[in-house]
């Protein structure tokens, strides 16, 4: 069943179709269904031998056949509603006077209005006057001239008009399905009911109720499945022909541009690559050439078109541009990662720099050995000496670690490794801060590097950056420290100068007093000796005062020395004040 060969089948169908056509009038003229014909054309016994019983049996069968025939006829009528004359396609143009002004078709069952003699299709005028569309109710004015009119008994038009209308040639309403018939309009209903091979009728098989086209009737019941010979699609035989004509992917079609025969499924490929008549755009179309032409013309065009010749170069450029853009995007992404990393580092550094102000006072009590390195540099010299500081950094952590462990404000140096960043930690100003902080940083950054060497190099680079930043911070701290000590020195110095000035004034007064006393004594000593005792006591008084003053000044000096000794560490920076003293 599945290997039913379609080509043979179709040719058979064509033949049988022709036969069906010639047979059909006979069927209907005798008004007998095919089953009846079969019955009557196969007489089992000669009539002469027919008994009465046989006759009655035959009559019974005949009645049964007749009822079945009527039922099937009703069903066929259901399957084929009466032809709507207004939907017919007319083969030749017709006279405009034959057109109903309402439906714009040649009149169908024309009527003439009694008063004004205007002519309409019966349905059209009824519909116009129906209560649905006309407020006046089922009768009203002429739609053309508004004369009050009605449909009288003698409203039918003359036979001559009806004959003219019935002679108009129309296409069979089933022409879209393939019926080629063109018949007079008056006969179209008969054509559909009796002759048209595309009219749907009942299946000739007794036990099949499905509809079938009349031309396929001689082939018997076609309502069983088959498989298309070409595309293996499963369908019913009755649909096979239509399948072949319109939907089988293997059906033969003509290319609409170049008239080459090809199967349907080749069409797409043909359109894309081969069809010489298809209009295709210039190869440079993407770059601005608007020319289109048939394939063979397009080739000559593309030889002459600058854009077409440059098209591969443009394409390459575009590709390169795209690649660059992609690379740039990747770089931007990387940059973002770096910036994030540095931002986190900076925040790490910012926190401690706040703490640096607080720890300044601690820095003053640091052991001299620790401070030696920072102190030996003046503020101006820091920028220049940052480099050597960086270079010996790796050892510094190890170098300082013993002292760091002894210093109370310093945490013990952590082993290198990730350390929780949110751990509150006093700023130490030491370099070993960087060492534990970096591995964790580099671990998050590991992805972008192509090789361990690159990784190390970049790590080195970032370490170097970190170093310079830390040294700058250190320089700042040192500068602040020296400023503070300088300020303190100044104040002390001022006090001392003030004390010294007072002392000087005091000693001057004492001198003046002594000298005036001496002057007074000398005239007394020359004039009266007896006053000697009291004078000598005066002198001794003087000297005791002088001694007291001297002692006071000595005490002052001593205190100054003490102050100097207390500021011993800062003495180097307050040479000016010392020279004054």
């Amino acid at each position: 069943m599945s290997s039913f060969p379609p080509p043979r089948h179709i040719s058979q169908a064509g033949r049988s179709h022709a036969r069906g056509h010639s047979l059909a009038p006979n069927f209907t003229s005798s008004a007998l269904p095919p089953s009846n014909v079969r019955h009557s054309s196969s007489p089992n016994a000669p009539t002469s031998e027919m008994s009465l019983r046989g006759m009655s049996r035959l009559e019974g069968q005949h009645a049964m056949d007749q009822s079945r025939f009527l039922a099937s006829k009703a069903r066929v009528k259901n399957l084929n509603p009466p032809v709507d004359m207004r939907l017919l396609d007319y083969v030749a143009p017709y006279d405009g006077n034959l057109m109903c002004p309402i439906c714009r078709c040649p009149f169908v069952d024309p009527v003439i209005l009694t008063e004004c003699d205007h002519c309409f299709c019966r349905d059209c005028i009824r519909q116009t006057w129906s209560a649905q569309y006309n407020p006046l109710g089922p009768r009203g004015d002429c739609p053309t001239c508004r004369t009050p009119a009605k449909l009288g008994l003698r409203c039918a038009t003359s036979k001559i008009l009806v004959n003219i209308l019935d002679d108009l040639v129309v296409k069979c309403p089933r022409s879209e399905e393939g019926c080629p018939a063109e018949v007079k309009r008056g006969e179209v209903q008969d054509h559909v009911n009796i002759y048209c091979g595309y009219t749907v009728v009942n299946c000739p098989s007794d036990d099949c109720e499905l509809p079938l086209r009349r031309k396929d009737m001689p082939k018997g019941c076609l309502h069983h499945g088959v498989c298309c010979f070409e595309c293996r699609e499963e369908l019913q035989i009755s649909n096979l022909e239509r399948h072949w004509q319109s939907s089988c992917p293997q059906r033969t079609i003509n290319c609409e541009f170049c008239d080459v025969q090809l199967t349907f499924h080749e069409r797409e490929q043909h359109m894309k690559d081969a069809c010489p008549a298809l209009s295709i755009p210039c190869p440079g179309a993407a770059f601005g050439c608007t020319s289109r032409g048939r394939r063979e013309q397009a080739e000559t065009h593309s030889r002459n078109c600058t854009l077409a010749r440059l098209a591969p170069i443009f394409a390459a450029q575009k590709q390169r541009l795209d690649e660059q853009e992609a690379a740039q995007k990747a770089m931007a992404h990387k940059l973002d990662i770096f910036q994030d990393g540095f931002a986190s580092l900076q925040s790490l550094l910012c926190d401690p720099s706040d703490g640096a102000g607080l720890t300044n006072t601690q820095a003053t009590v640091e052991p001299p050995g620790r401070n030696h390195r920072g102190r030996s540099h003046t503020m101006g010299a820091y920028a220049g000496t940052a480099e050597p500081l960086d270079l010996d950094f790796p050892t510094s952590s190890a170098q300082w670690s013993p002292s760091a462990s002894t210093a109370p404000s310093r945490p013990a140096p952590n082993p290198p490794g990730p350390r929780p960043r949110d751990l509150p930690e006093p700023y130490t100003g030491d370099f070993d801060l960087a060492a534990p902080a970096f591995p964790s940083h580099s671990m998050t950054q590991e992805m972008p590097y192509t090789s361990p060497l690159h990784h190390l190099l970049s790590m080195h680079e970032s370490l170097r950056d970190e170093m310079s930043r830390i040294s700058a911070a250190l320089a700042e701290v040192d500068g602040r420290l020296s400023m503070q000590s300088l300020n303190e020195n100044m104040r002390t110095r001022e006090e001392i100068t003030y004390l010294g000035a007072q002392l000087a004034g005091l000693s001057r007064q004492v001198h003046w007093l002594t000298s005036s006393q001496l002057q007074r004594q000398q005239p007394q000593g020359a004039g009266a000796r007896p006053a000697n005792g009291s004078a000598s006591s005066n002198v001794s008084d003087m000297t005791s005062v002088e001694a007291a003053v001297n002692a006071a000044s000595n005490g002052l000096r001593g205190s100054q020395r003490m102050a100097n000794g207390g500021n011993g560490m800062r003495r180097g920076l307050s040479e000016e004040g010392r020279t004054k003293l």
Partner: protein
Amino acid sequence: MSGNKRIMKEFADIQKDPPPGCIIKLLNEEDMNVWDVVMDGPADSPYTGGKFTVQVTLPKEYPFKPPVLSFRTKVYHPNVTNDERGAMCLGMLKADEWKPPNKIAEVLRLVRAVLAAPQPDDAVESGIAEQFKNDNKSYEKVAKEWTAKYAK
């Protein structure tokens, strides 16, 4: 069904022989019942040079019920409502005046005639009608301005 057939026929006819100054298309290909008409402003009127879009909607009951016209382009005219509907008041488009034999082509011809010669006594925009009757110059000026502004 017959209405649809008639619409198709009328559309084919109007494509073959359109009324003067009109280009008729379907608003979308599937719907035969909405036509898109681009009408040139009639010569010797303030609407010269403008292109007016008129949408013609044919009801399901067409031709037994009148089509509905609406100006999609704003137009300064006594017989066209000055709102987004842009309805034009035409005697033959009223439900009780409509006759099934009327054709769209005739309707469009009439629309163009009314555009050229406003009927202030039948006006829907009484203000414009007053202006048209009493101060024709300024009416023409505004109509020209609107044409230049909206009907390009």
